[in-house]
């Protein structure tokens, strides 16, 4: 497997986890924020499907989605749901960011667009939850 495909496999796992997480947090949201979550969930599904196609056509067997994922905290209300949404976006952003150095050309463009999308969605959830700062100086950076 190429270094790029290894990174994309890690991204795919993060996307699987994000989609699972949105399924858990969605029911705790209100009418205003559920639209944000639905849009985010759809975006992650689209990225996941594109990754599946890309990896499979490269001869890589993509990791399957797990039946469940451990959540970092219990989602009990709107506030914890928004907090989880922020974490899902940040964790996915971190994996996309790690894929940037391993890719170039058109694939790097796809990776960069995904990192940017995660970041703008994070701002939406942070705004809704009155969480500050609204933007990280270096989105996706974890070290």
């Amino acid at each position: 497997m190429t270094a790029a495909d290894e990174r994309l496999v890690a991204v795919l796992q993060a996307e699987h986890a994000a989609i699972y997480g949105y399924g858990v947090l969605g029911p705790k949201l209100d009418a205003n924020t559920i639209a944000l979550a639905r849009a985010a969930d759809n975006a992650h599904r689209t990225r996941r499907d594109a990754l599946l196609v890309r990896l499979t056509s490269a001869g890589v067997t993509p990791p399957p989605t797990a039946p469940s994922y451990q959540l970092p905290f219990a989602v009990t209300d709107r506030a914890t749901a928004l907090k989880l949404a922020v974490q899902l976006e940040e964790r996915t952003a971190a994996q996309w960011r790690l894929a940037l150095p391993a890719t170039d050309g058109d694939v790097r463009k796809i990776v960069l667009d995904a990192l940017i999308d995660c970041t703008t969605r994070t701002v939406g959830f942070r705004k809704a939850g009155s969480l500050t700062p609204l933007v990280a100086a270096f989105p996706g950076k974890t070290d």
Partner: protein
Amino acid sequence: MRVHLRRRALLAAAAAATTASLTGCDLGGDPKDPPFDPTGDALMPLLTSTVALRDRYGEALSAFPALQDRLGPLKDDHEQHIVALAREIGLPERGPFPAASGSASAAPSAGPLPGDQAAVLADLAKLEKDGRLDAEAACLAAPSYRAALLGSIAACRAGHGEVLA
């Protein structure tokens, strides 16, 4: 910085190898390190335009101090980008920074600040969008070791666009 030093070391090693093969002697070469010229660095235009962007926030905050809560954190992000870019290029983190060579248009004059608050926010949103596109282009053109930094800067600017929207 570490990566940068490593790259320079590699350049020096490559120069040494070339010298050795040209002279046929692997002991006589005392290759000079290539002179350090930050103005030719591909990131110089982005550094220059990032300084201009931060300064525009400074102007906006001077004119409309009530916007501090909203704009202050965004200005701080640009400050951090300046430090990171300067470090990457090998310049002192707080400047002064030389002008980028052959890119006088890298930081177009933004003109006078608009008079009312809504227009100032729209002005900043436009500059953030342009800045985001610049950072995206820099990311896509960058070598691997700079791609993550530039990708984060582009993403941060996109996030700023959401804050200003």
